[in-house]
């Protein structure tokens, strides 16, 4: 019998410890050193992946620590990470991010791991009567045998002392007798855990202030006296399961800060109100860094994550998928026909039948109404294609490091357009020769969104050369709506520009002429979206000129207002 098979019953019991409704795949039991090395879990007893909901057990380490008799407890602990804490990937990410002002990346993750272990173990010991203390006693015994208990760090002593207080075990049961300050801090931590067991963020904040003294600022000095029971990891395909993390939850309002103590510990038993931050966007840097810290993405997947971030912020404003409506029609009376036995009784028209003959003979004098349908005539709505020019000069800010409302607005319009069946051409532009564009009008969502997120961070020179692509646009293509966003002088839209011709020689052209040709060929209208407090004459002149060829003009006081515009625009052009 393989290790996998021999633990099937144990696994079922572990799930039953929590509920008969728990549905999780069977755990992967690893014992081979090569495989364990490959999985980077040589020193871990077990691991739980939140995205793929998979438990991996290191049987070799379990045997080494003398824990063969406690596999049921270890497995129940793993199930606890699914059922109780953290429960899902978004909560893990939120908890880790919550501590970003207190600890460096790895340390924050470590503290959250300890916190969720405390919640799960306390539940298993107090509510289910599982001997979790025996696991730690065995770990302690094995460590004494190896001699590592001597170097067990202060934090481990604190952690074990917390369990002793929580479970009313005599001091020294799980760790060598602790000094007075560890004893004090463990008592407070135990109290915090019990008081705030349902308010995790408040609980974690208090614990973070207590743990801070024991943990290094960064991960370089992080040492573990003894191994943890397990490690909670993001797991495979984590990015697809992080929906909801782009916005803040209400509990995240009062983040703990390593440079300032807010008196949280005095709030015990009294309750501390949090500031309302529900649904406010999280900063993109926090979003990306946290995802990297919890292992949900690698450094190379930043753009993919950023697309997900802005998509999530845009989605509440995106139009719903268009529905196919049946044409409105009225039934038209087309006379009557014979009703025979076997047909629906409801179809029988007694009035018509009596008109035929006062004597009712089924199948001979019985009549039914015959109706037809007027299909009506409704002109099919063709969605406009979108040609969007996103200013990504220095003043607009990098969407990867600060929240960009213009990016959210662009995402709203692009996703709505694609849903409605339109094509989109996107251009990210900044200084001269700094324009990144999609390969023409496209329906490739990833390509379009990536282009919008491209950041130049330089000067401002509108890329008139991109408009020259309209020369090749088919005459029968749908009309286009050109959208330009900027917070600077836009006179370059209609002034002269230079572009290399086929022979490679610089040729001078006029922006206004190119724009006129584009508008004419694309059957286009346009919208100028600006955020300029004081306009110079050049910009004023450009606006007036462009208005004459079919552009609308909107100036907002702050970019946040552009969201409402994008929403209204999408509804008008792509809504059903």
């Amino acid at each position: 019998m393989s290790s996998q098979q021999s633990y099937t019953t144990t696994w079922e019991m572990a799930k039953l410890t929590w509920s008969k409704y728990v549905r999780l795949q069977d755990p992967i039991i690893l014992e081979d050193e090569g495989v364990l090395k490959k999985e980077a879990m040589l020193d871990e007893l077990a691991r739980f992946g939140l995205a793929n909901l998979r438990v991996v057990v290191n049987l070799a380490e379990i045997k080494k620590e003398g824990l063969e008799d406690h596999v049921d407890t270890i497995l129940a602990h793993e199930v606890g990470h699914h059922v109780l804490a953290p429960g899902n990937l978004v909560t893990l990410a939120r908890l880790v991010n919550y501590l970003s002002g207190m600890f460096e990346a790895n340390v924050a993750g470590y503290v959250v791991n300890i916190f969720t272990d405390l919640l799960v173990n306390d539940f298993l010991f107090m509510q289910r009567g599982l001997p979790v203390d025996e696991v730690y006693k065995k770990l302690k015994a094995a460590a004494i045998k190896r001699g590592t208990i001597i170097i067990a760090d202060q934090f481990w002593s604190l952690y074990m002392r917390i369990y002793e207080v929580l479970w009313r075990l005599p001091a020294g049961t799980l760790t060598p007798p602790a000094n007075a300050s560890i004893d004090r801090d463990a008592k407070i931590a135990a109290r915090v855990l019990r008081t705030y067991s349902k308010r995790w963020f408040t609980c974690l904040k208090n614990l973070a202030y207590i743990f801070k003294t024991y943990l290094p600022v960064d991960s370089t000095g992080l040492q573990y006296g003894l191994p943890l029971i397990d490690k909670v990891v993001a797991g495979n395909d984590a990015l697809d399961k992080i929906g909801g993390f782009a916005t803040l939850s209400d509990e995240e309002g009062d983040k703990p800060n390593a440079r300032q103590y807010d008196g949280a510990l005095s709030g015990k038993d009294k309750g501390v109100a949090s500031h309302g931050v529900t649904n406010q966007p999280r900063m993109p840097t926090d979003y990306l860094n946290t995802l990297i810290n919890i292992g949900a993405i690698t450094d190379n997947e930043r753009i993919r994550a950023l697309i997900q971030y802005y998509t999530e912020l845009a989605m509440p404003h995106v139009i719903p998928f268009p529905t196919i409506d049946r044409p409105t029609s009225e039934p038209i009376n087309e006379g009557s026909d014979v009703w025979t036995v076997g047909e629906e009784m409801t179809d029988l028209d007694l009035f018509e039948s009596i008109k035929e003959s006062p004597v009712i003979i089924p199948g001979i004098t019985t009549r039914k109404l015959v109706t037809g349908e007027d299909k009506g005539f409704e002109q099919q709505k063709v969605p406009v294609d979108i040609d969007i020019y996103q200013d990504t000069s220095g003043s607009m800010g990098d969407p990867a490091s600060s929240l960009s409302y213009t990016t959210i607005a662009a995402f709203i319009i692009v996703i709505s357009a694609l849903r409605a069946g339109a094509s989109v051409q996107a251009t990210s532009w900044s200084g001269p020769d700094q324009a990144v564009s999609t390969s023409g009008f496209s329906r490739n969502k990833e390509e379009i969104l990536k282009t919008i997120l491209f950041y130049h961070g330089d000067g401002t020179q509108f890329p008139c050369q991109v408009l020259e692509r309209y020369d090749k646009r088919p005459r029968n293509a749908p009309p286009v709506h050109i959208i330009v966003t900027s917070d600077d002088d836009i006179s370059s839209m209609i002034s002269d520009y230079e572009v290399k011709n086929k022979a490679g020689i610089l040729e001078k052209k006029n922006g206004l002429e190119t724009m006129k040709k584009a508008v004419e060929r694309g059957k286009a209208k346009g919208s100028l979206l600006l955020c300029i407090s004081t306009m110079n004459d050049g910009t004023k002149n450009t606006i007036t000129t462009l208005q004459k060829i079919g552009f609308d003009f909107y100036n907002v006081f702050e970019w946040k207002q552009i969201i409402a515009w994008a929403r209204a625009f999408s509804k008008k052009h792509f809504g059903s």
Partner: protein
Amino acid sequence: METNHRLGKGVLKKTFRLVIPIMNTPPQSPAILARRMFMKAMNELPRVIVNQENVARFTQDAVYAIFCDLLEDLLEKPPPRGPVKELAERIVAKLNPQMFVIALGFLESSTVFPAVKQAIPAVQARFNVIEYLMEELFTTTLYYSTVVTMEAFIASQDRKEEFARKLLKIFGIGIDGETQAESTATLENLDSVEMSKLSSELEVVIRKQIEDRLAAEEAAAKETRE
């Protein structure tokens, strides 16, 4: 016999600074009660007592009457009215009278009362029982209600257990299955007054650490500028 009539003196003024009061050494009683039993009593207190909306009902007269009933039940003779009335006045003025009524309700409950009654002779042997009970019940409830809100009491089993153990300690009632040392250690871990004191200590440490860190950063920045 020790006398211990200290009510209304300096010890009460110190309450809000969370100084642990010098309590009378509790008597040693042969009475023993299982944890399960006293927690049952705490969890099954009449709703009229624990319902927060009823707080207005616990007037001076009501507290006086309930306390007189308890003392009479325990001592099997009417208590002296003057001191009890005076105490009821102080209770309403100084603390949440509902918490005091909860204490009385707990001691009067059918599961706890027999043990309390059994413990009375040991109390009588050392103290003036009326004065002792008035002082200890008042002081214990006062300190407890200073650091634990009614919401926390209702929501948390630990807070109920803490209050129950404190009240039983007044009568020297032992906990079944626990040595005296274990009971003391358990109550120490549960003690909210002690916890407030420890939290205040820890807060001083945390603030000092932050100040030191900021000062070190400032010094390093100054060096760089120079």
